[in-house]
């Protein structure tokens, strides 16, 4: 029995569909949600969110998020959510390089430092998610 999954970010609704299974990057490790899960509100780490719907799997790179699990609905609130297929690997790699350069340079304001760290983390997550997708392709699973 499918349930509703919504992924919302401050800028848009990134995803809304009925799905069979979802795996989330929970703060305490991978978090798999099947229908009729107990009500849960959790912090999400930066990582990969995988959705299975009708045997097809899709994945998102999620950063800075929360999840609210209701019996018939899962809502992910994230600062950014990028569909793996839409991630621009080149740009993510450039962003990683730029952030690393800032961190190596050393003399930076605390605010810039925090931002560079956040950008580095975001780039790393996007690259990981996109590369896995490139390796495996949009695959089907029973």
């Amino acid at each position: 029995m499918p349930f509703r999954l919504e992924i919302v970010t401050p800028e848009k609704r990134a995803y809304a569909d009925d799905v069979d299974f979802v795996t989330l990057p929970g703060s305490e490790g991978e978090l798999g949600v099947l229908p009729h899960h107990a009500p849960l509100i959790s912090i999400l780490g930066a990582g990969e969110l995988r959705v299975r719907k009708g045997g097809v799997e899709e994945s998102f790179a999620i950063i800075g998020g929360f999840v609210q699990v209701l019996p018939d609905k899962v809502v992910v609130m994230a600062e950014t959510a990028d569909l793996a297929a839409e991630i621009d690997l080149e740009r993510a790699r450039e962003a990683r390089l730029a952030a690393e350069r800032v961190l190596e340079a050393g003399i930076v304001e605390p605010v810039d430092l925090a931002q560079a760290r956040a950008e580095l983390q975001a780039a790393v997550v996007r690259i990981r998610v996109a590369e896995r997708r490139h390796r495996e392709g949009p695959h089907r699973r029973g």
Partner: protein
Amino acid sequence: MASQRDIRRRIGAVKNIKQITRAMQFVAASKLRRAQDATLAARPYAEKLDEVLADLAAVLGDEHHPLLARPEGGTRLLVVITTDRGLAGPLNTNTIRFALKEAAEHEGRLSAVTVGRKGRDALRRTGIPIVAHFNGFGDKPSFADVTPLSRLVSDDFLAGTYGQIDLVYSTFISTLVQRPIAQRLLPILPGPDAPGVPGNQFIFEPNPATVLRRLLPRYVATRLYQAILETTASEMSSKMVAMKSATENAEELIDDLTLSYNKVRQANITREMIEIASGARAGR
């Protein structure tokens, strides 16, 4: 009376103005659509955060986070959001007048943070201390743009610099109506627990206090982001209406000028005819 050539030149100038205001009207109209879409698209996230916050509030008391703590007096901070550019009708004037009214009604110390150049320019003349200023969010503000502003107000609130922080901005109601409002930003007042699963039935991971600590800064940023989006939508619709009426005024002016041009031309022709006729008669 102005000469024929002067009037023709003025008609040309007004026609140029009309072309410009018309172009600005259409640009504002297309940007308005985008700004409206962005405002609507940002809503689900904000609503969801409100809901989770209400769930948390049902489990936790106020003492669990200083951003929720009720203040005892202290300086009040107004975050006044206006636009960077003018030519947007009465929008900024209304917002600023509203902010000044809020300031006048408040007893005790008051400071301001301005977003948008127009607000800063106006508040400078009033003697309200401006502690920080932000601008250049542009026509398409992004959530990341708001982070420095959000961090500044949260940090200052946590440091005890302010007892209360309010937003003053223009809400977008429709293309013709934008209304300035003042809205409480901090301390946060969580809404009532939403219908559905009551807050105390949720499992919180790792625990409610940690979730709250992560949630509140995002909540503040989201409120600011929404206020800026609303202001952008208001700016575009107000500009569109202002430019539409400017275009219509220019058209009216062109009609008037064309009429006087024709009158002068007719008068000149008549005068020349009289001169020719009287010249001919004198020669006979």
